[in-house]
């Protein structure tokens, strides 16, 4: 099963991070086509037609998101969400570091489409190298007239500001990102108002993921209708999957949505489990979605199939566990992450992740108690759907499924500590 490379088409070309090679490989043709031959509305229409869905995790249709901008003459902003921090996900990073001009072209083309003169690219604090590369890319593109006061001689103005965050998972949540971008502590804002009506500096704002904006480049190049032919009806186009964990060839793979199963991705592209081992489970969409057991690995990688299988396509970060991995250890490691990254704004997430982490740690370190499973489930019930932003639900998605799918492991973890098995199992 081959990859289908649109975004990564030229990623292995030496020197593609520089503008000369990028242009030689056809770069900036989409931007040129958009600003010279198309009206902003034409570009929006192509994106609508393409059925592109947001690649950050939620999968919201991009064209529709753009259409929410009020037509009231106020200044608009485009913000590129480059806060990629989801455990298991490193696809945006690859775009930013290796083909920065693709992202920049996508940002400029999209800014033109939504009639924003100013776009912001927000990078997570750890992407220092990417920040330098993108900065260089912006300077190169400016020198060639792709941005500035007179884009490609059209008289249009397009500006891009690059911003390096302070390193916080929560800033991947779009309103927390806007808070951080405005110079404040990254904490999610109350919605409504939604960013489309009142976002950055209280002005209409679209926030899109790096991969989403990069995908606008091939969409403009091939036309939305052509792009929509890729993938399935609900899940059009190609998607990047970051495969990590117990596979022989971890890495980023670009495949057509719905045309490849999870098993095919893991076995054919990623090389299968290490010799002598078998897969135990995988989290297909970044650490914030439920586990899939191997008997569901024949599920196609698209939004609706994954949902039917009881999980989510999410960010496309596939974390793979083989038979050596402890589910309880893994759950603790994930909970440590969410406890560490909880912003502290709302009670259930702030206190709940701490509590869950402490209880899991006890179980792992040999101090599990009778009743702990009930406690875990009770705590998750108090978090589920009751937090201020999706981080709380994200924190318990994997643990909840782990308790359903691998309850025995939790039970034996506690029972191994001299508690009667049948009591623990309750």
């Amino acid at each position, binding site marked *: 099963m081959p990859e289908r490379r649109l975004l990564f088409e030229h990623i292995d070309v030496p020197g593609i991070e520089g503008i000369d090679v990028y242009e030689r490989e056809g770069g900036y043709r989409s931007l040129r086509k958009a600003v010279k031959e198309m009206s902003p509305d034409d570009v929006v229409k192509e994106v609508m037609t393409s059925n592109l869905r947001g690649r950050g995790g939620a999968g919201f249709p991009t064209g529709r998101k753009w259409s929410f901008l009020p037509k009231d003459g106020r200044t608009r902003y485009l913000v590129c969400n480059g806060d990629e921090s989801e455990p298991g996900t490193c696809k945006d990073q690859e775009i930013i570091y290796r083909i920065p001009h693709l992202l920049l072209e996508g940002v400029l083309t999209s800014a033109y489409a939504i009639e924003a003169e100013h776009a912001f690219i927000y990078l997570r604090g750890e992407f220092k190298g990417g920040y330098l590369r993108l900065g260089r890319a912006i300077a190169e593109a400016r020198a060639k007239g792709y941005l500035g006061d007179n884009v490609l001689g059209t008289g249009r103005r397009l500006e891009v500001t690059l911003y390096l965050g302070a390193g916080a998972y929560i800033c991947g949540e779009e309103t927390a990102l806007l808070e951080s971008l405005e110079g404040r502590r990254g904490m999610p804002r109350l919605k409504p108002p939604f960013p489309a009506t009142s976002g950055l500096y209280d002005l209409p704002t679209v926030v899109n993921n790096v991969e989403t904006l990069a995908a606008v480049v091939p969409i403009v190049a091939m036309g939305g209708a052509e792009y929509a032919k890729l993938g399935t009806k609900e899940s059009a186009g190609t998607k990047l999957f970051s495969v990590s964990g117990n596979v022989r060839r971890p890495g980023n793979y670009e495949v057509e949505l719905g045309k490849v199963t999870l098993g095919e991705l893991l076995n054919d592209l990623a090389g299968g489990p290490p010799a002598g081992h078998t897969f135990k489970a995988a989290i297909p969409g970044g650490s914030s979605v439920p586990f899939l057991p191997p008997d569901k690995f024949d599920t196609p990688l698209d939004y609706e199939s994954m949902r039917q299988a009881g999980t989510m396509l999410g960010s496309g970060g596939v974390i793979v566990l083989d038979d050596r991995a402890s589910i309880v250890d893994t759950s603790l490691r994930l909970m440590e992450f969410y*406890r560490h*990254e909880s912003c502290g*704004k*709302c*009670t*259930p997430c702030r206190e709940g992740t*701490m509590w869950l982490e402490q209880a899991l740690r006890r179980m792992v370190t040999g101090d599990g108690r009778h009743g702990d499973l009930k406690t875990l489930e009770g705590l998750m019930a108090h978090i589920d759907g009751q937090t201020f932003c999706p981080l709380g639900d994200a924190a318990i998605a994997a643990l909840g499924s782990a308790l359903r799918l691998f309850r025995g492991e939790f039970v034996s973890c506690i029972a191994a500590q001299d508690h009667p098995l049948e009591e623990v199992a309750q």
Partner: protein
Amino acid sequence: MISLTIDGREVQVEPGTLILNAARQAGIEIPVFCYHPRLASVGACRMCLVRVEKMPKLVPACTTPVAEGMVVRTDTDDVMQSHEGVMDFLLSTHPLDCPICDAGGECELQDNAMRYGSNQSRFAEPKRHLKKAAELGPMVELDQERCILCLRCIRFMREEAGDPALTLHERGNHTVVDVAEGRTFDSIFAGNTIQICPVGALTSRPYRFKARPWDLDEVDSICPHCPVGCHMALSLRHGDVLRIQSRDSDEVNWGWLCDRGRFGYGFVHQGPRLTRPLVRRDGEQVPVDWREAIAVLRRGMTGTVGALGGGRVSLEAQYLMRRWLQEGVGTAHVDHRVQPLTAAIPPAQVGRIDDIDTADLVLALDVELLQEAPVLGIRLRHVARNGRKIVSVSARRDMLDMPHQELATQDVAKTLRDISRGEGEIGQAFLRASKVLILWNGRGQAISEAIADAHRLRQGDTYTMVVGGLANSYGAEAAGLVPGPSGLDARGMLEAAAQGELDGLLVVAQDKRDFPDQELLEAALSRLRFLAVAGFVPSDLQERADVVLPLTAWVEADGHFVNMEGRAQRYFAGASRPGEVWEDWRLFAELLDYDWDYDRVLEAVRRDLPELFAADRRTGGPAPRGGYVGQPGTIVAASIFHKGVMPDPLVQAIVPPPRIFLAPDRAGALHLAEGHILEIGPGKAEVGVRPDLPRGSVMWRIGLRGAGRAVAVLASESGLAGKVK
């Protein structure tokens, strides 16, 4: 109106009402922690989640507005479980040190735990340990372990007070509230955070460990420190005021106080008080009984006599004082305006504090809100945050940090000209606005005239409020403590006395520091045949008196203060009275030979000054008066932090050090720089250089002893020879 159903009950509310408040109106309680009616909702604590039909998840009642036909349930199993969950989470890290916590008994965490928590915590992990009993500033102590991170304090300071002195530090479960890096919590609004803290995380340092709330008596009162007239409640034990909290009032203070008001009761019990009438015999003041003191006062107030002051006593006392002076003494020489106050608002155009909410333009003319009426600044900032236009026309910038001050200017003279002619940006905005509120400190003839012009120029609603003065200056004006047709004003009386043309003078609740021209005062005192002083505390003026009449402080008697909008506001007696002090009104009732009780006095006041008690008080503004003129080249400012007759051991820490401000060119000419110390009369003052002052000018605040003379020297050309260290 929007109709919805809450727990099966039909409810009708205004559009935009939050589910939480719709439920409250229907008598259904939804528990909260982070919600505060005077702060914007954040939805952080998750205590108020309710079930709304057709919504997939529980929704926060404090952030969700009602919709037509909405069906809300606050009593379903999932809602109850959610309450239990939040309580469990909050208590998991809470130290449960209620027995030694000042908030015990008035703690929202305790209350909600009683009603919505479970009996037992499942939390079996170690509790966190954080900062306890940390002094954040002079008034506020922080216990981070008790904090439930409702963010009320942070939101109040940042959004309402415009001073982000408190911030969150760290993240997630390590998140704590603390002062911002490099700050101490010295905001004059800091005390509000104590009151809005739902738990014992922020507590009052002066009140710490003083009492349990169930042992306290609560008495309604009004703040005596500035003419805003904030509503407050005294907490008393055994007749002592142990703390003051604000009372919410839509019209006036929205539940806020400044720290001058919140902690400004120290002089009542902690400092020395005048407790017995005194009469001078053989050069010594000796205690006498009231009958004798009254007799001495009557005898002394014969011939050519006058009276000064009265802006700090009750309306009832002011009313009887005026009647006694008129009917008993027969003098027209009376003036409450010891401090410079022009107060020239045409009747029927007196603004109201809630005009701030509806005026589309607020002009603050030469007003130092933080010094003279701090709480008003919070309301102004609130409307400015929502996009309203606030224009500060001032040579001095002493407002809260405020958004949307696009038209702020420092050139007062030019702006006044523009406004009175409808020219320029501000003048145009002034003409266009459908409703304008002018705030003015009541000083300066030029501004007074410009305001009169402005009122003539505009057709639409134009209102003015005098922000300066004392807590009851408006009452004094309304009660008639102003010179009669042939009467002398304050300055006139002092000049007459200095010439030996005034025999006797009664001074009510003022001390030397209140007088801007202290040399003139000294000259007057040295020639007076008779000086009577009525007041609360010993003072340098009282030491000179021939008869001293000890009066109740405001917490010890019933009365009214009339605030800057002409609203008579009742305060009630609570504290026990020291020694033989009399209610302020009783002194004058006695002098009039009226055997009246308080109710009788109040009846007379209401009959004769009905406009102060009317619902629509716009009809009762004080009449225009002549103004006070300061020394040339000097600016006399006022401040509620002036200690004077209400000195305060508690607020010492927040009283700014005495300073004299110089325009940069004047400072340069005098070889003075920021921070230099000036020796002035009995004390010292620090030099402040303010680029916002007009060229060549010197500014000082009333209440600084010896400053008048020093300022005159600094402002004069001979200032170069002044004693500078």
